[in-house]
């Protein structure tokens, strides 16, 4: 007990009285005005997703990580965002190691509420397979030194870390289209989180006799009678307000606080954004610098490298192929959907078309998704052997007349034959919105066939 008594930090009566009496003349012990923030220094770590914020004496580090989890039952297509706080006894002797204390829980909850309730982070974009797999974002907040106003600093650190965080890109692949491919960072640039706005927490400390300060220090926190934390963003939206017990606050004062908070939030947002921008620029530069050297070593050491290197280059090769295919495929499907006529024209004249046709179906799982439309297109082209249609078509597109049948067989020789019944189903089945706005020629076609 004696040791604990000796280790607790305590305030003298002199300090308590001085803080209060000086505030009456609008002076604070560190020379600030009542509505002035301390100097904020935001430094970003060498790795993505880590930030350190210094707010006067206060120092807070925050690290963002991500992993795969199964999404919650009630929100099958959303990733998760969770916040963990660590109050080390090194920061303040009154923090106990182990179980998080009351203030640690409160801090975590306030930061969490600001981010979650205002939907600042787009959790839906974190979903990979609905109901099965999603990213879980974890924010770890470490208090390195307690100089007061931990909440604001922690909130800033969390935001800065979130803004620089990059997660590896994922896509679905494999034979059944359910296999998740996590692309290594070297292959595809990792993607940043989607952050709609920055909710900034601003702490107000209230002393008796209706004195108010912004960004209280450690000493002021020990003296003040109550506090309120307003989480607002630069647009002036109020994301959260926390007012625990203590001094009562009148409505007028709250409105004043919110106004002040909005202006401060704008300043802080600007600062965070400028720091993050500088960081992004630098990392982009580094990437540019790194790439040539990488290629150089590959070329130089290509022969005397071991299997590993070969494996990598093979991988890269495959990967590049895959990329090409994807782009080709998407190009193809897009063409079919949007602009049937021009495509067929192009096909007829261009040898590229054939190259695209042969590969995607046999390879890509996505083509299954594309199939119906794809088939519709092919059906339309074959016209279900309607002479009327053929005539129409011929009238419209003269140049590709001769080649057309051939090209369409190329598009999907197998599927058109096998899936014939399905195609009909599709045609009979309920029309989609897309069908309603099909190109003119198609509409004409139908009209003519009815006639």
């Amino acid at each position, binding site marked *: 007990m*004696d*040791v604990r*008594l*000796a280790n607790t930090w*305590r*305030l*003298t*009566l*002199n*300090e*308590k*009285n*001085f803080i209060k*009496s*000086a505030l009456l*003349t609008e*002076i*604070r*012990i*560190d*020379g600030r005005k009542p509505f002035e923030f301390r100097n904020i220094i935001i430094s970003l770590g060498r790795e993505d997703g880590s930030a350190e914020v210094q707010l006067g004496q206060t120092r807070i580090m925050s690290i963002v990580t991500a992993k795969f989890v199964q999404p919650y039952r009630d929100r099958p297509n959303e990733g998760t965002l969770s916040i963990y706080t660590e109050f080390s006894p090194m920061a303040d002797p009154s923090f106990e190691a182990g179980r998080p204390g009351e203030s640690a829980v409160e801090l975590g909850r306030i930061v969490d509420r600001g981010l979650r309730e205002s939907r600042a982070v787009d959790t839906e974009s974190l979903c990979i397979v609905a109901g099965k797999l999603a990213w879980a974002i974890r924010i770890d907040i470490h208090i390195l030194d307690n100089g007061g106003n931990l909440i604001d600093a922690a909130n800033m650190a969390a935001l800065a870390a979130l803004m620089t965080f990059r997660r590896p890109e994922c896509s679905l692949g494999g034979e059944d289209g359910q296999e998740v491919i996590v692309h290594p960072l070297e292959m595809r640039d990792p993607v940043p989180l989607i952050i709609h706005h920055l909710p900034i927490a601003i702490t107000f400390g209230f002393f008796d006799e209706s004195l108010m300060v912004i960004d209280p220090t450690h000493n002021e926190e020990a003296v003040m009678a109550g506090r309120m934390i307003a989480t607002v963003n630069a647009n002036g939206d109020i994301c959260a307000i926390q007012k625990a017990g203590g001094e009562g606050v009148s409505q007028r004062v709250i409105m004043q606080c919110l106004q002040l908070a909005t202006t401060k939030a704008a300043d802080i947002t600007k600062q965070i954004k400028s720091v993050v921008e500088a960081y992004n620029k630098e990392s982009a530069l580094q990437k540019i610098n790194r790439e040539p050297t990488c290629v150089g070593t590959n070329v130089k050491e290509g022969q005397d490298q071991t299997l590993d290197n070969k494996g990598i280059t093979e991988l890269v090769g495959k990967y590049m192929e895959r990329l090409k295919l994807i782009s080709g495929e998407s190009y193809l499907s897009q063409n079919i959907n949007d602009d049937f006529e021009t495509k067929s024209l192009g096909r007829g004249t261009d040898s590229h078309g054939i190259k695209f046709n042969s590969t995607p179906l046999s390879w890509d799982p996505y083509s299954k998704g594309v199939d119906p439309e794809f088939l519709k297109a092919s059906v339309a082209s074959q016209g279900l052997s309607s002479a009327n249609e053929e005539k129409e078509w011929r009238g419209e597109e003269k140049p590709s007349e001769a080649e057309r049948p051939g090209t369409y067989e190329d598009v999907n020789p197998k599927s058109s034959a096998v899936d014939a019944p399905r195609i009909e189903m599709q045609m009979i089945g309920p029309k989609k919105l897309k069908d309603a706005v099909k190109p003119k020629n198609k509409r004409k076609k139908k009209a003519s066939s009815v006639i």
Partner: protein
Amino acid sequence: MEIKQSSSPTSFIDSTVVPGDVVLDLSSMTNQTIKLGGGLRQDCDAISAMKAGTLRFSKPNKYWIESSQKRYVPCVEDTVLGIVVDSKADNFLIDIKGPALAFLPVLAFEGGTRRNIPKFEVGTLLYLRVVKANFGMNPELSCTDASGKAAEFGPLKDGYMFETSTGLSRKLLSSPTCPVLEALGKKLSFEIAVGLNGRVWVNAASPDTIVVAANAIMNSESLSTAQQIIMVEHLLKNIQ
């Protein structure tokens, strides 16, 4: 041989020592009595350092190690600023930033008897002197000087107390007056009490004088003499 031995202790004085350094050899100075201060210990004939810092020597026979740290290690005859934590029947419990709470006997005041025991509220700031600092025991304090007079010891009223490192508080007490205090003293009038345990109390007529003085002192820790003077001038210009 003899020259070498006598020169070895002087070579360590005012230089940096680390724990384990043997700084003095008693076998070569048998006819002397020496006094050891903080950070030194005796193993038979060898005096070795227990902490990193600068070895200091004051004539005629005092040796100690100076270092700058946040935690204070009590040492006899240091003047410190303490905060009253609790009061018991025989002792006040005082926080002096040390590893353990210090005891202030209720009778350790000028003319202290059982009848006139002072009453201190928890959180009162006191200017005190360390009387005993032994291993394994709580240090003992006193509110009188060695001759039993009150001197300047006792409770400090009003003003503002802030914490610094022990190194800075030692600098503030050094004998050619510390440049910050000198520069501040030319323009402002204020009272100051410095404890060797890294606590400084400042009092003045107006709160802004206290704030300026306190911040100037806190900022001066890592600055050179010229920088300190410039900093103080800059601060004073801002206030006027």
